[in-house]
């Protein structure tokens, strides 16, 4: 089976199978498709209608409004630091959406990812107040896709190269995604351990999920219409807390791996339906996509 992409040099102690044995390219391809479609949705829904409100002359953003986010105060950068025209920003949004679509289709996959990444990174420091953790996940995933052979399968690139879908790729890109995912959850879990004046915080007391689902800022539907009794919100609070804090362990132990991933994916699907958190749940679900054994589905399809 052929391997597409560069195998990085690693010190001999790190050349363990998990880090060097090639993996099915369809897993990386699935991540590429998921990221491309999520970014397309995010740009079309949350940016395009408000691009002139958020960027350019007379808007809520720009270097003059957020000077502390601009060089030399910070190491941040932006390709659009000197762009002022609202029309230009509207055009940038459409180029961004096109890059996301091409990424999903696998047309010049790495270049499309690079264009999408450069635009995403460039817009953030011009209006940091309109951004959130979901954008960080987006940027991290795009940076992985633009440096890895993300178009090796399920892509226009692969079709043009007459490459079969059962090719493999070096595993590093997917391992980075897994490491990032583990750290997102573990770090979130750590922040939730709080005691103030001898009293346990919301997560330890079991109050947290109720406080979120009943809050008008975040609830997609009014709380009284959500079929979630209080004891269920308590149970969910402790489940989320244990899931996040224990995530690295759940992944290291083979028996807990799949159930934990089901819990995590279900949690984000629940957020997607019941909470209004922008595209955050969709970005988090992208992290789960390469963990699905897509190669089995592909081989089953070939057999039938």
């Amino acid at each position, binding site marked *: 089976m052929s391997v597409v992409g*560069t*195998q*990085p*040099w*690693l010190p001999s102690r790190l050349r363990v199978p998990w880090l060097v044995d090639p993996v099915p390219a369809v897993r990386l391809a699935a991540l590429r498709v998921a990221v491309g479609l999520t970014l397309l949705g995010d740009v079309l829904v*949350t*940016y395009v209608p*408000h691009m002139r*409100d*958020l960027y350019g002359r007379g*808007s*809520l*953003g720009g270097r003059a*409004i*957020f*000077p502390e986010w601009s060089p030399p105060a*910070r*190491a*941040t*950068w932006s390709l659009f630091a000197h762009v002022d025209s609202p029309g230009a920003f509207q055009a940038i949004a459409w180029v961004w959406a096109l890059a996301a679509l091409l990424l999903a289709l696998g047309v010049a996959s790495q270049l499309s990812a690079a264009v999408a990444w450069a635009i995403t*990174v460039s817009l953030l*420091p011009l*209006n940091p*107040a*309109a*951004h959130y*953790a979901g954008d*960080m996940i987006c*940027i*991290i995933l795009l*940076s992985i896709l633009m*440096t890895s052979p993300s178009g090796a399968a399920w892509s226009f690139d692969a079709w043009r190269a007459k490459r079969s879908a059962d090719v493999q790729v070096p595993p*590093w890109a997917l391992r*980075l995604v897994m490491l*990032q995912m583990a*750290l*997102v959850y*573990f*770090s*979130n879990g750590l*922040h*939730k*351990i*709080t005691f*103030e004046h001898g009293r346990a915080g*919301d997560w330890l007391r079991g109050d*947290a999920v109720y*406080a*979120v689902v*009943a*809050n*008008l*800022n*975040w609830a*997609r*539907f009014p709380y*009284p219409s959500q079929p979630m009794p*209080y004891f269920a919100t308590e149970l969910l609070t402790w489940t989320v807390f244990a899931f996040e804090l224990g995530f690295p362990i759940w992944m290291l132990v083979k028996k807990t791996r799949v159930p934990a991933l089901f819990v995590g994916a279900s949690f984000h699907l629940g957020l997607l339906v019941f909470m*209004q958190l*922008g595209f955050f749940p969709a970005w988090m679900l992208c992290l789960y996509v390469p963990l699905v054994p897509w190669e089995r589905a592909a081989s089953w399809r070939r057999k039938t």
Partner: protein
Amino acid sequence: MPEPRASVRQILLGAVLLWQVFFLLTANLATLVDGPLRGGLDAVDHLWAEAACQHQVWGQYSPNITRHAIFAAVEFRWPDGSSVEVRSDAEERDPFDYVQDATPYRVALYEGDLIRPLWDFTAETMKARPGAFVAEASERVRSRQKPIVAYLDWQRRRFLERHPRVTPPSECVLRVHVWVVPPHDRRPWTWPPPDDVPLARWRPGVVAPQGDLDVEVWDPAKEDFVFVTEKP
């Protein structure tokens, strides 16, 4: 059999990969160590996080969660005493009958960042602890003066576009609608009416005294707006 020599491309990719792993581990786990080592790690990680735009800040909804739902509103005032209030697109008209979509999300994030002090105060607690409120509101105005002016000016221009015959208002007041989440065991479970409290005021064309900011904050004890010094 001797191992084939690694190409420059492989070495470069390996180096980038190892650096990224080091960054991810230290940026996320540095909180577990203390002392000068942490300071050094933070400085290096911060630089890379900004250059690569990979800020590793994963503390959503923690450590605790506010019991307040807060929405920005802008009150325009004219010299004759008349006023009009404009609500945020993110605030639902009926808290018992709505479906939120993601379209206003980015602007709502922006608004939420400006009015954050009201996570900790209601109209009642503002009056009970006016000093604490003024201190917190002043800190927010100091760090967000330009975004606050940009937001008030943006809302003012939108308002004048919709009402071209209206003369421009002389004052723009950033107000906050505070909905306090009821306790879970309240029967019947219902929303109390929201508090509508002022946070800051911008008067276009009015120059602040030397050393003060152009945006004033609401002082609940004086029941008036007061200028904020540039430096605490």
